């Protein structure tokens, strides 16, 4: 598969395009800089790029992995990674993030966050409605449920991704949709602008967009050929049957049929198999015994389609508004990917089920995929799918049912007739029929009657044109010659339905045709006509002005979809029934001053005992960053200076984990020399152990004449941590040593202010390092 050599290669190409704008990890991406000189932008590459896999047994931190790819240069590891030296191993397969803010200027910030968490396939959702738009849209209008796919938005997005892939150190694939009634045009746009992948499946147009079936197939062949030329990855649309059917596990035979139709058609249209991806979803979720259903299906699919690409999507059909439930389902979906195979692991936000997917939930989705895939690294080294028994029987059954389905399509006269008879998205498990399939008519649908038979003298003087093309007439008219041997050969291959395994020469083959017009836009980037904006009101400049203060200024507002939208979520349990809790939670949200309140999730904990509710609302104010109360950061002292003072004064520390706490990890990290603890500065440390009574701590300090007492206390139910601190202070006073010792408390829940309130000299919380503690001690000793 095509692989970019390395990211530096990208960078080399890039410098020609974007002068000197390099993203700094601590600076926000600047939309204005992206928009600047956009008319001159040229994509650094075309086509899809896979991750560079690392060899089996590659060591990352303390562990070896068999299914990982090259590390990122800059990334956000999983939250628990700090226990494991902050490693961030990257799974071998591409991870997809779907982005759907409706404003491309917000989308690109989302690209960056997703990429930083490990996504390298950014799928920009297209605004609803565009699939019925007969032509291209230009400019940067706002979209509903996604952005309008325009040249400017695509170009700005790809340009932003160039910057982002340099930041993270891995090529990122950009993806959108070649569906609807303008497929060939969008395919050209995507080819020209370096879009790396797209959905293309005429069945999707027909069944779910209501577009005329003839138009869909005629357009599809042209679009696919144009996509193949740019080596774009194509994703099909079969999974939508799954997402639509009432009992999704019953459409499994049909799914194989839908995949086969798009695959066979794509190959005949000129796509190589290694650019044709099946979009597949484990059909069920718990409380169904889903692995028993999902796994045989996944196996059957991979048997029949073994040379194709697998894009494993996560189940969306049975998503409710409980993000926890969805996370479990998606983890098990990743298990199916690991037990079978996935070249791309797609992710869905766990709040998709609410119809309010928010960008931080997209990141959660990416993390779930990354975490599961890494956790399940090469699970097949340890376990195997049985090659007999129920699984094998079910696999066979699914395959046979799919074949019977295809047979009946031919029997009724072909695909178009089958659609007219409602063969598809019927909720019976074929050959069972529930008679509730989606019916479309040959003469019906959007753009019905718009295909036109090509005349004998038809020709098109451009590359990647599919079908009849009277090039001899073209040569005659233009007076230019093209070498048509390769073109004929290509046609012949298609004629035979022969599978083209490699598309290496596809570009060159096609390049010949546009000699008729001295190069087409697919071959000569400079020939593209760029339109900037058409609408004076609905464009990015207007929007950027409107929320300027939240993007650049001192003001900050929470957001979930657009800069400054102000949306937050309240989570609460109310000890009342579902209906009462619903309305009481809204009342609470309104009492807190939130606007546009709405219940987005409810879960009965017990019909009488209470309900868990999540309410969204809009914060009606913004925060002035310069007025946010932030404690001063005092820089740490130089280690050499600390050590000098410690040795001069022969400082001793008595340390203990107090109360009923058996955890010693945190304290040990602060003390132990091997953990970069304070021992390395020369402190003599007496560690008394865990569950030590406060009395013993004081006694030990007196005995060894320690100037410093460290206690650690983490259990914080009620006020035990405060009680421990207070007692330490009191006892030190009682024993007459309070003014001779420095008292320090630490623990995950400890805060400086709280510790001081209880008589400590200071308190240290989560994430404290030895040097932090040492610096405080030395400042205090020398002050």
């Amino acid at each position, binding site marked *: 598969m095509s692989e970019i050599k390395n990211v530096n290669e990208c960078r080399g190409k890039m410098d020609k395009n974007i002068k000197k704008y390099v993203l700094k990890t601590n600076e926000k991406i600047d939309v204005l800089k992206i928009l600047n000189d956009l008319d001159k932008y040229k994509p650094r590459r075309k086509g899809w790029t896979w991750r560079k896999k690392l060899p089996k047994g590659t060591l990352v931190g303390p562990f070896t992995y068999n299914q990982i790819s090259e590390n990122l240069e800059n990334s956000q590891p999983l939250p628990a990674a700090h226990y494991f030296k902050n490693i961030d191993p990257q799974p071998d397969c591409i991870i997809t993030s779907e982005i759907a803010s409706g404003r491309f200027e917000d989308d690109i910030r989302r690209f960056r966050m997703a990429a930083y968490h490990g996504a390298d396939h950014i799928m920009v959702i297209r605004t609803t409605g565009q699939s019925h738009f007969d032509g291209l849209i230009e400019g940067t209008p706002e979209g509903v449920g996604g952005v309008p796919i325009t040249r400017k938005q695509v170009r700005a997005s790809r340009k932003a991704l160039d910057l982002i892939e340099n930041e993270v150190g891995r090529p990122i694939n950009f993806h959108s949709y070649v569906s609807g009634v303008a*497929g060939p045009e969008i395919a050209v746009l995507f080819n020209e602008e370096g879009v790396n992948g797209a959905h293309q499946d005429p069945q999707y147009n027909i069944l779910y967009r209501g577009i005329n079936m003839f138009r869909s197939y005629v357009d599809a062949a042209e679009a696919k050929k144009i996509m193949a030329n740019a080596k774009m990855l194509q994703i099909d649309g079969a999974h939508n049957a799954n997402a639509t059917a009432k009992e999704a596990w019953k459409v499994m035979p049909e799914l194989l049929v839908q995949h086969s139709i798009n695959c066979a058609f794509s190959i005949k249209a000129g796509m190589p198999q290694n650019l044709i991806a099946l979009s597949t979803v484990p059909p069920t979720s718990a409380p169904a015994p889903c692995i028993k259903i999902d796994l045989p299906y996944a196996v059957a699919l991979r048997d029949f389609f073994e040379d194709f690409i697998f894009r494993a999507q996560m189940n969306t059909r049975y998503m409710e508004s409980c993000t926890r439930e969805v996370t479990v389902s998606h983890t098990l979906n990743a298990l199916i990917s690991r037990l079978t195979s996935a070249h791309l692991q797609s992710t869905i936000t766990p709040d998709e089920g609410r119809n309010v997917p928010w960008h931080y939930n997209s990141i959660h989705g990416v993390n779930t995929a990354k975490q599961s895939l890494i956790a399940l690294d090469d699970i097949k080294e340890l376990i195997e799918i049985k090659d007999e028994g129920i699984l094998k029987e079910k696999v066979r059954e699914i395959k046979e049912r799919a074949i019977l389905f295809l047979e009946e399509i031919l029997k009724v006269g072909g695909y178009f007739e089958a659609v007219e008879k409602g063969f598809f998205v019927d909720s019976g498990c074929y050959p069972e029929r529930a008679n509730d399939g989606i019916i479309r008519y040959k003469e019906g649908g959007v753009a019905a009657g718009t295909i036109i038979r090509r005349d004998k003298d038809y020709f098109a003087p451009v590359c990647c044109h599919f079908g009849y093309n009277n090039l001899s007439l073209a040569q005659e008219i233009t007076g230019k010659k093209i070498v048509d041997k390769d073109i004929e050969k290509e046609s012949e291959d298609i004629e035979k339905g022969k599978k083209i395994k490699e598309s290496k020469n596809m570009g060159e083959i096609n390049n010949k045709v*546009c000699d008729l017009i001295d190069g087409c836009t697919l071959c000569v980037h400079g020939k593209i006509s760029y339109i900037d904006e058409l609408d004076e009101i609905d464009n990015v400049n207007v929007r950027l002005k409107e929320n300027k203060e939240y993007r650049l200024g001192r003001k900050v507002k929470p957001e979930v979809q657009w800069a400054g939208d102000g949306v937050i979520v309240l989570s609460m349990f109310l000890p009342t029934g579902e209906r009462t809790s619903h309305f009481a939670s809204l009342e609470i949200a309104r009492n807190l001053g939130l606007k546009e309140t709405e219940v987005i999730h409810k879960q009965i904990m017990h019909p009488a005992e209470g309900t868990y509710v999540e309410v969204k609302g809009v914060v009606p104010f913004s925060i002035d960053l310069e007025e946010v109360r932030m404690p001063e950061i005092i820089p740490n002292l130089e280690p050499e200076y600390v050590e000098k003072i410690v040795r001069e004064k022969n400082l001793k520390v008595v340390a203990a984990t107090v109360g009923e706490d058996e955890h010693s990890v945190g304290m040990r990290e602060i003390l132990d020399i091997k953990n970069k603890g304070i021992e390395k500065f020369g402190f003599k440390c007496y560690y008394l152990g865990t569950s030590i009574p406060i009395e013993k701590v004081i006694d030990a300090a007196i005995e060894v004449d320690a100037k410093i007492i460290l206690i650690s206390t983490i259990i914080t139910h009620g006020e035990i941590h405060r009680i421990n601190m207070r007692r330490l202070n009191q006892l030190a006073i009682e024993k007459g040593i309070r003014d001779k010792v420095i008292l320090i408390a630490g623990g995950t829940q400890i805060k400086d202010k709280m510790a001081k309130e209880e008589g400590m000299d200071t308190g240290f919380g989560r994430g404290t390092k030895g040097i932090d503690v040492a610096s405080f001690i030395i400042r205090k000793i020398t002050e």
Partner: protein
Amino acid sequence: MQREDDFKIRRKNIKDLSDEKLKERFWDLANKVVEPMIEMAKEYTSPSIERSVLLRMSFNSLQAKAIVNKCLELDILGKGAGHIVLRLAKEENIPYKEAGEKLASGELIEKVKRIFKIKA
């Protein structure tokens, strides 16, 4: 059509096929199903295909739309929008970009009619 699950009856002819044969049959059938669609795609064009040709010829989307709409009005899209533009350029002896732009803005309609022998 409502139908009980008669899988056990229908599978009679395929139940004894080997896994390899089964796969072969699956792909044979799939290829047969798509054959008519691919044939249709070769023989037909559409407004979007023709606009996509014009895009590749360096016209912008507004121009492409206008040119194709003109061709539709004249009912000559079956000749190919690119063909029409090139032919017009040749006849007018101007660069094809100029020919297309003129056609898009409504000029040279009569000329096109003459070239392609359109009455009315």
